[in-house]
C-alpha cells in the first residue's frame, strides 16, 4: 500500500500515480536515507576512513618471507603487486586455508601460488556504503583501495566498524 503524500489516499502497491488526485508517486519508491548514519554512509568517501598504506610484495616472493613480514609488521594482509598493478591479496585467512600445517614444506614456493587472485577493489572517492556493501556481501575483511586504478591503501572491516561505532552513540 502506498499512501499518497498530497491527499492521503491509499493506493495499490506499484501505482505510478495516485488514483484519487493523479499526483505522481514514482519518487516514493526511491529509498531515502532515514538517519544521520545512513546519510553519512552515502555521503562520506573512503578517504575519510584514512586507508592504511598496504604492505606490498612481488608475486615471486616466497611464502616464508611473506608470513614473517606479516607477523613482524603486525598486519593481516599483504597485496601482491607487480608493476603497480594489483595481482592478488594474501590474508591471514588465506594462510590458514591454503598454507595450514604445510608451512615448512611450502616456505620456498612463490606467494602467487596461494594468493587470492584479482580481489574486489574500491576507488578512494567511492562512498563508504559501497565498501560496506562489498565487504558484507562478499564476506571480506580487507578491500584494496585504488585511486584511478593505482593502489593507494587498504581498508578493513574494522575501520568501518570503528566508523559506525563513532557515529552510533550508545548511551552508557
Amino acid at each position, binding site marked *: 500500500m502506498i499512501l499518497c503524500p498530497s491527499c492521503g489516499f491509499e493506493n495499490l502497491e506499484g501505482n505510478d500515480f495516485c488514483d484519487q488526485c493523479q499526483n505522481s508517486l514514482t519518487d516514493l519508491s526511491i529509498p531515502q536515507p532515514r*538517519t544521520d548514519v545512513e546519510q553519512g554512509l552515502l555521503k562520506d568517501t573512503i578517504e575519510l576512513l584514512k586507508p592504511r598504506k598496504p604492505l606490498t610484495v612481488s608475486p615471486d616472493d616466497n611464502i616464508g618471507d611473506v608470513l614473517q613480514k606479516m607477523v613482524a609488521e603486525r598486519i593481516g594482509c599483504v597485496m601482491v603487486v607487480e608493476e603497480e598493478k594489483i595481482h592478488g591479496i594474501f590474508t591471514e585467512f588465506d594462510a590458514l586455508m591454503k598454507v*595450514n*600445517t604445510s*608451512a615448512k614444506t611450502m616456505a620456498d614456493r612463490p606467494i602467487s601460488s596461494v594468493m587470492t587472485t584479482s580481489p574486489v577493489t574500491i576507488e578512494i572517492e567511492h562512498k563508504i556504503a559501497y565498501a560496506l556493501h562489498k565487504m*558484507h556481501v562478499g564476506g571480506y575483511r580487507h578491500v584494496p583501495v585504488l585511486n584511478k586504478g593505482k593502489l593507494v591503501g587498504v581498508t578493513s572491516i574494522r575501520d568501518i566498524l570503528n566508523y559506525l561505532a563513532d557515529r552510533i552513540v*550508545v548511551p552508557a
Partner: protein
Amino acid sequence: MSFHLSLSTESVMAAYPDDPLIVAPDATVSQVLQLMRVQQTGSVLVCSHGKMLGIFTDRDALRWMAKQTDNGSSGCETQPLSELMTREPTSLLATTTVGEAIRLMSAGRYRHLPIIGTNGIPSGMANVHGIVHYLVDHFPDTIYTLPPQPDMAQAEREGA
C-alpha cells in the same frame, strides 16, 4: 531513537554470533589447524571441563606458521594448543548488549569475542562480520540496494 535504543537493550545474541568451535587444551596445533580449515573458521575456543581457558585465532595460527618457515627457531607440529592460545580473552555474557560488544571490539581491536552462557559454558562467538550484519539490518535500503558498481547509476530516468 529506536536504533540507538535497540543497541543499548538488545543482547549480543541478536548480532549473528557463530557457534563456538571448542577444542581441548591438549589438542595439537596441526590437529586444530586442520580442523579450522575444514570448518572454514578463523577462531577456536580452548575449553576444559566446560570452562573456557583461552582462544586461538587465525592470527595465532599465522604466528605459528611464520615460526615454522623460520629455520632458526623450532616450532613443532605436536605442540599442544595451550602453549599458543591467548589466555583468558575478553569475553561477553549472553546478556551483554550489542552496543557494549561494539565498544569492546572497537576499543580492544578484537575480531572475535566469546560469549559465555549463564552456566559458564561458551555459547557463541561474536564476530565483526556478525556485528556488521546486524548494523546493516538497520539500514538495508542504504546497503543492499546499491548497484555493484557506483558508476552504473544513471543520471536520468530511462524511458519516455
